[in-house]
């Protein structure tokens, strides 16, 4: 079944052109979740999120309830929302920020109440000018409506929310780099341990960092109960999730689907979803969860869209973005471009990532340009192995953050699946796809 009868949890308003306005939001049940939450104890609100077993929607898939539990005993805390969506081919938070900013704000306020924080920051990728304007306008309206600020809705609970613009750096999506950036510094990921900002976060204080989509689920969970959310999906992957589909498909876009109940084949081919591959071409490969994830071939197309299901098959659902490549795609060129992305975005702190990404990019480029050597394939895999020993999945790490170990994914996948294509580039001195 391609599309189940599951309710639209985070995209219910997007059919309306004015979905970003307070009027539309209030007319469609907006801020009812916050009112309900404020009448409950903070512990009871957190319990509902635990019951929902909401997995974080940013890419790592860590349970939101467990993240919160680490913080609730701390005296001083911050809540930081990660809206620095930059993983290539991921564009779901972009949609939520621009089209339903009040839903995000309500989620932030519910989380702030559950965690009893007095200040929350929404860090939004700098390139999202319209999203920054929409969220700021929504925040201004919410302050005026008494939904945020002092004594919200007469509950006695007060919290301030600040919209913070980024300035263009992929690495700031890594939560400790994001906190550094929010402190006014270069976006350098912090050395672990401590592993969790819940222990040492913003200004060294306990901090919860949650993704935009994760927060946007909270109003529905509070209104309908955590159990109703947990009843959707399957296994550990509860609820619905946004899948961003791009590349060679007739109908690219963001689709809200019940977890596990839909397969990659459904997502790519169903008429109501991706609508198939253009020009009647065949599928060559797809990336199941952002460019940090190993690629899958057509043999994996019947896998369900579930976090554990994709992990067991040797890749990750990651940020929920699926890139489709048709059979006219040059695997060398595609993996080279992904490698160049990492080479550009490496923050430069750790040698394996800083040097490795540059070397890998240059070797990939010379193969694509027809100047490759026979020994280059071995050299590529050897350099990849230096960044992530064993080239296992999940990857081993030689660096402070996971950007480094993400570099080998596309190269190792492309060589493993399309070795002959690399050899043709090398032997014939050029790209057979032109």
């Amino acid at each position, binding site marked *: 079944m391609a599309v189940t009868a599951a309710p639209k949890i985070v995209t219910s308003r997007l059919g309306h052109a004015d979905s970003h306005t307070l009027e539309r939001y209030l007319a469609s049940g907006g801020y009812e979740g916050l009112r309900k939450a404020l009448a409950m104890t903070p512990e009871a609100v957190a319990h509902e999120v635990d019951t929902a077993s909401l997995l974080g929607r940013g890419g790592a898939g860590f349970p939101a309830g467990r993240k919160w539990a680490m913080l609730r005993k701390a*005296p*001083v805390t911050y809540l930081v929302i990660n809206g620095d*969506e*930059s*993983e*290539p*081919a*991921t*564009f779901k*938070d*972009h949609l939520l920020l621009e089209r339903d900013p009040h839903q995000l704000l309500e989620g932030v306020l519910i989380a702030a109440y559950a965690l009893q924080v*007095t*200040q929350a920051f929404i860090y939004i*990728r*700098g*390139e*999202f*000018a319209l999203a*920054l*304007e929409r969220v700021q*306008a929504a*925040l*201004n309206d919410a*302050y005026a409506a008494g939904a945020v*600020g*002092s004594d919200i809705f007469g509950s006695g609970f*007060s919290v*301030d929310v*600040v919209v*913070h*613009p*980024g*300035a*263009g*750096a992929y690495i700031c999506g890594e939560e400790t780099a994001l906190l550094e*950036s929010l*402190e*006014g*510094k*270069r*976006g350098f990921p912090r050395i672990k341990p401590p592993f969790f900002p819940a222990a040492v976060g913003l*200004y*060294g*204080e306990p901090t919860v960092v949650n993704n935009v989509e994760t927060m946007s689920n909270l109003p529905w969970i509070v209104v309908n109960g955590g159990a109703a959310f947990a009843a959707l999906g399957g296994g550990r992957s509860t609820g619905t999730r946004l899948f*961003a589909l*791009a*590349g060679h498909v007739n109908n*690219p876009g963001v689709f809200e689907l019940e977890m596990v109940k839909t397969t990659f084949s459904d997502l790519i081919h169903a008429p109501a979803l991706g609508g198939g591959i253009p020009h009647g071409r065949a599928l060559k490969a797809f*990336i199941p969860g952002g*460019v940090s994830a190993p690629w899958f071939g057509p043999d994996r197309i019947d896998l369900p869209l579930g976090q554990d299901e994709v992990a067991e098959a040797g890749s990750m659902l990651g940020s929920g*973005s699926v*890139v489709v*490549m048709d059979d006219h*795609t040059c695997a060398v*060129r*595609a993996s080279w*471009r*992904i490698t160049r*992305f990492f080479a550009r*975005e490496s923050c430069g702190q750790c040698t394996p990532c800083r040097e490795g990404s540059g070397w890998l990019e240059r070797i990939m480029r010379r193969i694509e340009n027809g100047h490759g050597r026979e020994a280059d394939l071995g050299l590529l895999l050897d350099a990849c192995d230096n960044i992530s020993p064993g080239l296992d999945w999940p990857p081993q790490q030689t660096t402070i953050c996971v950007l480094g170990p993400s570099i080998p994914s596309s190269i190792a996948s492309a060589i493993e699946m399309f070795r002959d294509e690399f050899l043709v580039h090398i032997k014939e001195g050029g790209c057979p796809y032109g």
Partner: protein
Amino acid sequence: MTAAARTPVGGPRRAGDHAASAHLSADARARAREVIALYPHPRSALIPLCHLAQEEQGWLTPEAMVDIAGLLGVTPAEVLGTASFYDMLHTEPVGSHVVSVCTNIACLLNGAAELLEHAESSLGVNAGGTTADGSITLEESECLADCDRAPCVQVNHRFVGAQTPASFDRLVADLRAGARAQDIPDHGTLVRVRRTTGLQADSTTVAAERAAMAEAQAGRAAAAEAAKTAPEGVGGHP
């Protein structure tokens, strides 16, 4: 921003050029203080203040960085050191329209490399360059998260939808003619919606929290110091 306030583009800046206008205006400094007041620590306002400076000048001038440093209580080198990490903060002059063409994977699969090649030849500049009239800076960008409208193009960080070579040329003509001024402000203006209120949460609660934070930090520092001076074998290294 008036046309006269914009620093001319092209060629290295000469010392003394527009020296007066390169500093933050009184209005910008007032806005900067409002922004700083939103954060527990002033330095957190560094990136927002850099955006504010770009809104006035179109780029981040050395003079503005000195002003920002003064407002935040850090050195100008710290401002430059942070700003130089971020793609959107330009420490060299750029055109009034920064046109970003994404060539990352989803766009690459949809003709982005060909579009960029066309853009370079039609504008007569390589990616990274600014046209002689100072109107357009062309950038090759990483993924901009608009992948269902590929190849994705932004002008001054406003999405303009998927472009073909022909539509790209029309877009550039419109930009040069000022036909898009309504929806695409000159480069540097990022957020046109101003925050309407300062912090509202009860200041005594916040002050109490800040005091508790300082106490907790002092406690941790003391504990760390004690661990350092502890005799061998008590704490020790792993």
